[in-house]
């Protein structure tokens, strides 16, 4: 029987942030994740926006944690070495009639203590964003907003936690939670004093297994298009459409790596598995985004995808101790990605108040980033190749990812074990050919580095093997 002080359920950005915060305490902590990697659920398919924090109603958890999370991400980026770009955001008003509502949003931002907000008028707005439609009349500018790579945000926090002693159990869904004298017994094999529920879309299932007052999480799908980096320069800020009676609109944004992305839709789905895109949803994104920029180069779309938000019934995040020793971090929908580090901090405070741990004396805050040769000077790259020739061997030609980076991704405390795992860490296969050329070689490197047979290498989950057998094996 394994005994822990804290057990976290869920390896999305929320669970990763909680683990990252707890790693600095003298506690025995483990994280259970049902899939084989970090960021396999909502974290892998969202807008990647670091919101400024004017949107949520003053006094809500969302408002407080968004502003705090934003502040933390600015500080963390250089310590954990994930990709963050402080682009600023614009909420664009397309009709003078809607200006009062924009002013209201500005006021709400002030109440939420969002720094640097101001309304920009048409001329300045078009100077800031030359491709913008002529219909745009003014916008709310938030200089602290930005874009983050959601995968490496979550992975870097998890990796830092693992490097500092947090244990990770993958392919381990939480199936049973039983009350014990000292805390909880999970799956009959993990004993813990405190249980943290960061199970994303399934957080209500876990909560309802234990708590009197039931919660309900509804999956709401968002569909997106991602464009080639050639189109990345069409927007330099996160461009929101001002919400109106007609709807919330869609956003256009550069990504943390310089692609252009548009989306999302917002449709409730029947099941928590409906991560499929739909013809209707994609058509809707296309149409709505064209209001912001009317000449989007749809011939440069490199992929479309969908993700599910975990929408809580009450509207606000559900964070707190809702049964004795059972702490929820549930209903983390937008601005959940931005808020995650602050949620980690808040949950850690609850845990400190319960267990009164001392600090982890050996805690190391720094986490080494992956090498992206595009960010190196020629001289730096030369030196690196001399040290390790694998950094001169190109594997992914579209994103310029070397064998060295892929091997590194497969050799960390939380290693990439699949094509998607590699893709999310170092971007091999993320480019314009969408892994057409590099996937067989990447599979070889995964196979060699992790000692997995080539034909066992997966796309992202246990059942997603790329290879189905040897040639002619099925011929009688």
């Amino acid at each position, binding site marked *: 029987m394994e005994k822990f002080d804290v057990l976290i359920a869920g390896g999305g950005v929320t669970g990763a942030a909680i683990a990252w915060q707890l790693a600095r305490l003298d506690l025995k902590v483990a994280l259970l994740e049902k899939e084989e990697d970090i960021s396999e659920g909502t974290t892998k398919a969202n807008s990647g926006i670091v919101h400024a924090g004017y949107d949520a109603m003053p006094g809500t958890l969302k408002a407080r944690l968004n502003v705090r999370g934003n502040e933390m991400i600015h500080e963390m980026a250089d310590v954990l070495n994930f990709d963050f770009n402080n682009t600023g955001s614009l909420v664009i008003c397309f009709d003078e009639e809607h200006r009062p509502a924009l002013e209201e949003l500005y006021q709400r931002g002030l109440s939420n203590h969002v720094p640097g907000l101001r309304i920009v008028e048409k001329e300045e707005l078009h100077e800031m964003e030359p491709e913008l439609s002529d219909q745009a009349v003014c916008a709310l500018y938030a200089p602290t907003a930005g874009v983050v790579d959601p995968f490496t945000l979550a992975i870097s926090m998890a990796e830092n936690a693992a490097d500092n002693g947090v244990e990770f159990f993958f392919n381990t869904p939480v199936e049973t939670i039983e009350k014990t004298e000292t805390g909880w017994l999970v799956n009959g094999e993990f004993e813990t004093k405190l249980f943290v529920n960061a199970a994303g879309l399934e957080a209500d299932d876990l909560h309802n297994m234990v708590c009197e007052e039931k919660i309900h999480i509804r999956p709401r799908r968002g569909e997106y298009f991602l464009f080639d980096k050639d189109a990345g320069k069409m927007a330099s800020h996160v461009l929101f459409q001002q919400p109106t009676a007609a709807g919330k609109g869609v956003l256009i944004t550069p990504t943390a790596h310089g692609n252009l992305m548009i989306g999302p839709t917002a449709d409730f789905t029947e099941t928590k*598995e409906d991560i499929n895109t739909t013809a209707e949803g*994609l058509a809707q994104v296309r149409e709505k985004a064209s209001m912001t920029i009317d000449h989007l180069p749809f011939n440069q779309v490199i992929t479309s995808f969908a993700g599910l938000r975990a929408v809580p019934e009450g509207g606000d995040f559900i964070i707190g101790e809702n049964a004795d020793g059972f702490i929820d971090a549930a209903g983390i929908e937008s601005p959940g990605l931005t808020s995650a580090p602050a949620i980690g901090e808040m949950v850690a405070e609850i845990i400190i108040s319960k267990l009164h741990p001392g600090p982890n004396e050996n805690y190391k805050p720094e986490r080494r980033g992956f090498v992206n040769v595009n960010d190196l000077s020629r001289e730096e790259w030369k030196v690196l190749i001399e040290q390790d020739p694998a950094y001169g061997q190109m594997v992914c030609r579209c994103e310029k990812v070397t064998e060295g980076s892929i091997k590194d991704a497969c050799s960390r405390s939380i290693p990439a074990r699949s094509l998607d795992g590699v893709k999310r860490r170092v971007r091999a296969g993320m480019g314009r050919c969408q892994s*057409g050329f590099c996937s067989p070689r990447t599979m070889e490197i995964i196979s060699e580095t992790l000692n997995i047979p080539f034909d066992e290498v997966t796309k992202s989950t246990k059942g997603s093997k790329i290879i189905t057998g040897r040639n002619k094996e099925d011929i009688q």
Partner: protein
Amino acid sequence: MENHKQLVIIGGGPAGLAAAAAAKKAGLDDILILERDSQLGGILNQCIHNGFGLHTFKEELTGPEYASRFIDQVNELEIPYRLNSMVLDVDKDKNVTYVSSEDGLQTINADAIVLAMGCRERPRGALSIPGTRPAGIYSAGTAQKLTNIDGEMPGREVVILGSGDIGLIMARRMTLEGAKVHVVAELMPYSGGLKRNIVQCLDDYDIPLKLSHTVTNIKGRERVESVTIAEVDENRKPIPGTEIEYPCDTLLLSCGLIPENELSKEADVEISRITNGPVVNESLETNVPGIFACGNVLHVHDLVDFVSQEAAKAGEVAARYVLEGIPESEHEIDIKTGGLVRYTVPFKVDPNRMDENTIVRFRVGNVLKGGFVNVYVDGERKIHKKRMIMAPGEMEDIVLRKEWITPETKEILVETEAA
């Protein structure tokens, strides 16, 4: 490594190899081929089917055999090449920067460059096919690599979208290796591949080809579980009620090839919106003097024989450019297109620089039966040739004669005429 070369050829596939051999034979000594893969030959190495070389060698070779004929020539001619060497950057001053484990980062200044980078396949994402994103969706070329090079099956029950040649070839290959190919769906009302491939790869194996059909849904969480195809109307929109769901574990995509011109763009080479390749003149020279292009990076070919032929021309002119200099173009005449002709390569000719005969290759935008190809020079018809059938999947060519064209010529027109 020395930092200057007379000629750098980017790409060691069929185009790069033929260009190198021709340049050497034309008297140029100081040549370097840069190849990103671990061997020369390019995509031919995974094309283990036969049918290559009928025009060039008058015999039927497999892809690797065809490649080896040119690799042997390159070796006999002692033309240097670097493998595992990825070109990162080319500028208009003809500085070529590449990276490899062995050489590190190198920048070479070249007197001339031949662009021979080939093309890539259009991925699923570019097609915006709705559905989930499980394992089991591959471009036909990726599946070909796994099957033919690694000996591993990428699937058992297969649906193919797109009737490009690689898709057709893979329909047969997968069948021969023990998979069941249920259907090939093609969005257009005609195939994108060669007629001979439809006969030899689909008909011979009773694999149905459904024209005017597309994929409307993909199901499966971890691995593909089914693919739905539906008929499309004349606007290529799916017709409700025509959907058929095929239980399967694999979807192969063969939906077009895109010339890989990211490097060309960095060197300020003008790219055609129709071919997605460089705009070249009769010398296969781009708008940047001394940078030439050939093979699939210039425009996507059906037959490697024509790639070799075109590349030899590029290599030869590049050699002449370095050794003698070719006169700056004074009077380039655009080749206009009419009827169903979508583009021509070359896009323009300079009568002072033309050979006696210039091959002009082109594709049509739709199927035309029993029509004609016409060439007009200043309104005078020079060519009027009947073609049994012209189709988008089959490249056409005509020969433009120097004697028809003078520095005073204003217009050259290549057109199709309905029967």
